[in-house]
């Protein structure tokens, strides 16, 4: 004979059947209730342990959650602030214009060339002034080189095989301190100590700002020393690096183009000179031949008046021819002088452009070796200092409040209702 349904259910039903009251339940109850006494003094109150443990568990969960969130937030901030960002300068426009502006402001001879370079890059073709400057048969190669330069800088990616790096660093830091003036002075000393130069200083009672430049080789030492001025909690730094490879390639191409230009003009001048010499030689030969004829005729002695008359006419004609040849010789000299002057001028300009390109290249190298920086100094209050050391202080406040509430609840339940013994 099997039980109907699961065994556990059957036993439960059986158990319920077993629950019963005694026969004299009421009398028994009365007798027992008479033994209930009101204790004198305080009574140990049963604490709602479940509530306490539940509250503490909830508070602990909140604590873990927000501590974890704060730690994660601080970690992300640290990564962002101290991350070195490398900006790809392949497009070239921004960093090109920045570099061109720097060179222009430096007042160097490269300024007009920099402007020319910028216009080239903006238009992607040779500007009229540049074309005029290079307007010669032999200068085609230079024009092509400049065109190539424009193509390379604007929109074209640098070849991946060119792994050269010309990183220009920019340094920025934020310092929080209660001694703004002192830290500002120390920073200036540090900058100068590392061979740098302070460009801008602004110091007020509760804030300061310093811009400076330092050699790239001193950057690590400068960073470490600056970090040591204040606690890490009150110091953030941001370092950016820009690869000026496109600029470098542009400068190299400019130098190559300028060299080609100079060589071209020098070659033209040489050719011009050779041609002139040949022309002069030819013309002088013809003039000398005429002169010889004139001499020959003038040396002829004749008694015949008719012959003398012929001789006079021939000498006059030869003199005219000689004068013509002389005029041609003079014209050739003049033309040569003018052409030579023009080519000399072009050569001088091309050499000047070459020199300017070389100077720009040197300036680029110097820019890469120089780090521009700025440091912001802010005054910090005691409250902010506390918050920095205890970022999740408000959780402590919540815990304290919860603890106070629990204690008040506990002690209020422990307070005994003093009932005087009736007996």
């Amino acid at each position: 004979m099997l039980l109907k349904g699961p065994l556990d259910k059957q036993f439960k039903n059986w158990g319920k059947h077993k629950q019963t009251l005694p026969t004299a339940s009421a009398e028994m109850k009365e007798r027992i209730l008479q033994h209930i006494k009101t204790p004198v003094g305080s009574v140990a109150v049963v604490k709602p342990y479940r509530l306490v443990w539940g509250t503490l568990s909830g508070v602990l969960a909140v604590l873990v959650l927000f501590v974890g969130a704060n730690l994660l937030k601080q970690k992300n901030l640290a990564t962002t602030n101290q991350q070195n960002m490398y900006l790809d300068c392949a497009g070239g426009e921004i960093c090109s214009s920045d570099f061109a502006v720097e060179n222009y402001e430096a007042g160097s001879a490269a300024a007009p060339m920099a402007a020319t370079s910028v216009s080239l890059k903006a238009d992607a073709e040779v500007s009229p002034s540049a074309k005029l400057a290079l307007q010669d048969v032999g200068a085609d190669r230079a024009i092509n080189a400049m065109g190539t330069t424009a193509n390379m800088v604007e929109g074209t990616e640098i070849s991946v095989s060119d792994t050269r790096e010309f990183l220009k660093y920019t340094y920025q830091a934020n310092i929080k301190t209660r001694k703004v003036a002192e830290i500002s002075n120390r920073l200036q000393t540090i900058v100068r100590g590392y061979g740098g130069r302070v460009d801008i200083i602004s110091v007020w009672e509760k804030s300061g700002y310093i811009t400076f430049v330092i050699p790239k080789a001193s950057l690590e030492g400068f960073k470490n020393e600056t970090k040591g001025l204040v606690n890490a909690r009150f110091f953030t730094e941001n370092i950016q690096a820009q690869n000026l490879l496109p600029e470098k390639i542009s400068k190299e191409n400019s130098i190559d183009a300028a060299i080609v230009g100079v060589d071209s003009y020098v070659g033209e001048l040489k050719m011009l000179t050779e041609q002139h010499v040949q022309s002069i030689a030819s013309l002088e030969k013809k003039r000398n031949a005429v002169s010889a004829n004139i001499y020959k005729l003038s040396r002829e002695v004749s008694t015949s008046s008719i012959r003398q008359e012929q001789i006079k006419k021939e000498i006059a004609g030869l003199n005219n021819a000689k004068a013509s040849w002389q005029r041609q010789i003079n014209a050739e000299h003049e033309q040569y002088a003018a052409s030579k002057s023009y080519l000399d001028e072009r050569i001088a300009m091309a050499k000047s452009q070459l020199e300017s390109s070389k100077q720009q290249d040197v300036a680029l190298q110097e820019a890469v070796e120089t780090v521009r920086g700025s440091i912001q100094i802010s005054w910090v209050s005691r409250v902010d200092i506390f918050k920095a050391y205890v970022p999740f202080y408000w959780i402590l406040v919540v815990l304290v409040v919860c603890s106070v509430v629990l204690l008040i609840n506990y002690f209020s339940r422990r307070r005994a209702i003093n009932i005087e013994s009736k007996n």
Partner: protein
Amino acid sequence: MDIREELQLVARAQAGDKEAFALLWDALTPKLYGYLVNQLRHKDLAEDICQETWLKAAGHLHTFKNKGVRFSAWIFAIARNECRQHWRGGNKEVMVDMTTEDFADSIHSTPSTDYLLVESTLAKLSAEEKEIIELRYIADLSFKEIASILEISMVAARVRIHRALSHARMAIK
């Protein structure tokens, strides 16, 4: 009655509230008496021990502290000790086999076939197995409370109940 209500009644009773204690009596006595009747197999004796249990509980109510165990478990622990003391006093021979009709004297109707089958099945189990089943299904105690009464671990209590039910299942077959 859940543990929160029970603890509130106990707290009030400890403060001298007889009404609260009466409510505890009403809630626990059917289970307690049913357990004692099944243990002692003697109704009058069960009444006596039930009264003694409640008297002791009332007299030592101020010593009860909620440390994870319910008041009902505490009562049953007192009752169990009273039964042991009675048996140690050499009174086992007072026990009389009670008939099924005696057991049927409850608030419920005539015992069903299942009820009788369970009764006969339990008769085939050991005393320890019967006790643990009574604590589980008559006293309606949790595994944790049974463990505290029997002074064993909660896992051991679960295992014992499982074994008892397995034996009961085999006995039925």
